[in-house]
């Protein structure tokens, strides 16, 4: 087993355990912190796949900006630890069974699909994840969506301010 394999398994276990802790934690602030751990694990996966630009953007945008926004809102509301009313046990059990059935079904489909048997993912090689090729593609083929996304940000900003001021 090579180092890359060991890193893959470690990061995967870390991501899944942290994602489960997001659900289990009673305190919303602990959930946010565990979700940041998930994002760091996923960034580790990006680095393993040699998608360095996305790894950095994932940390900056998700762990840095979005989760701080969540943390800010939770602290602003001052939600008590046990103020959240729990769903009934039956509803919880139904949700877990539904999610587990979805997972089982999808894994069974993946196991049986013949097109992806023996297909390998290129780890720690390939240059498409670096900034130079991505920037070239973004500003030549994808320049119109890039500019439209700025309009999207403007409208989101205006919307957030209008909703917040009401």
């Amino acid at each position, binding site marked *: 087993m090579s180092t890359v394999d060991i890193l893959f398994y470690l990061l995967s276990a870390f*991501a*899944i355990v942290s*994602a*489960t802790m*997001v*659900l289990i934690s009673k305190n919303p602030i602990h*959930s*946010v912190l565990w*979700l940041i751990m*998930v*994002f760091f694990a*996923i960034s580790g996966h990006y680095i393993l*796949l040699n*998608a360095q630009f*996305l790894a950095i*953007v*994932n940390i900056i*945008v*998700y762990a840095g*900006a*979005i989760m701080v*926004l*969540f943390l800010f*809102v939770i602290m*602003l509301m001052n*939600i008590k630890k046990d103020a959240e*009313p*729990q*769903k009934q046990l039956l509803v919880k059990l*139904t*949700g*877990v069974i*539904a*999610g*587990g059935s979805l*997972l089982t079904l*999808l*894994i069974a489909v993946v*196991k049986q699909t013949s097109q*992806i048997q023996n*297909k*390998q*993912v*290129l*780890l720690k*090689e*390939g240059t*498409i*994840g670096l900034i130079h090729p*991505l920037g070239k*593609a*973004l500003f030549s083929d*994808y320049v119109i969506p890039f500019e439209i*996304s700025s309009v*999207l*940000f403007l*409208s*989101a900003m205006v919307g957030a301010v209008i*909703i*917040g001021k009401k």
Partner: protein
Amino acid sequence: MSIQYYIILCLTLFSIGVVGVLTRRNAIIVFMCIELMLNAVNLLLVAFSKMYHGLALQNAADTTAGIDAQIFVFFIMVVAAAEVSVGLAIIVMMYRNTHSVDINFLNRLKN
């Protein structure tokens, strides 16, 4: 590393997100679980892009095949950032009206 390991990892993360949306009642936690599902899909897109790139490299040495998926992930992150700002503004407004973030208070749209 086989692509199937990546698919199974991402499916697990996605299903955990689905279970969170179904079982929690705090609107902020539900929102965070949606972010988790988005990230699982992002990771799967990058894994598929590297798989495709590895296949294309066997035919041409300097190909950039598979770069579209990574651009797509970048745009998903952009849209997620805009979505979170508006969504959290809605949750704050809901908290101001009902003094709770319980999603069961939102069922008045039903009538």
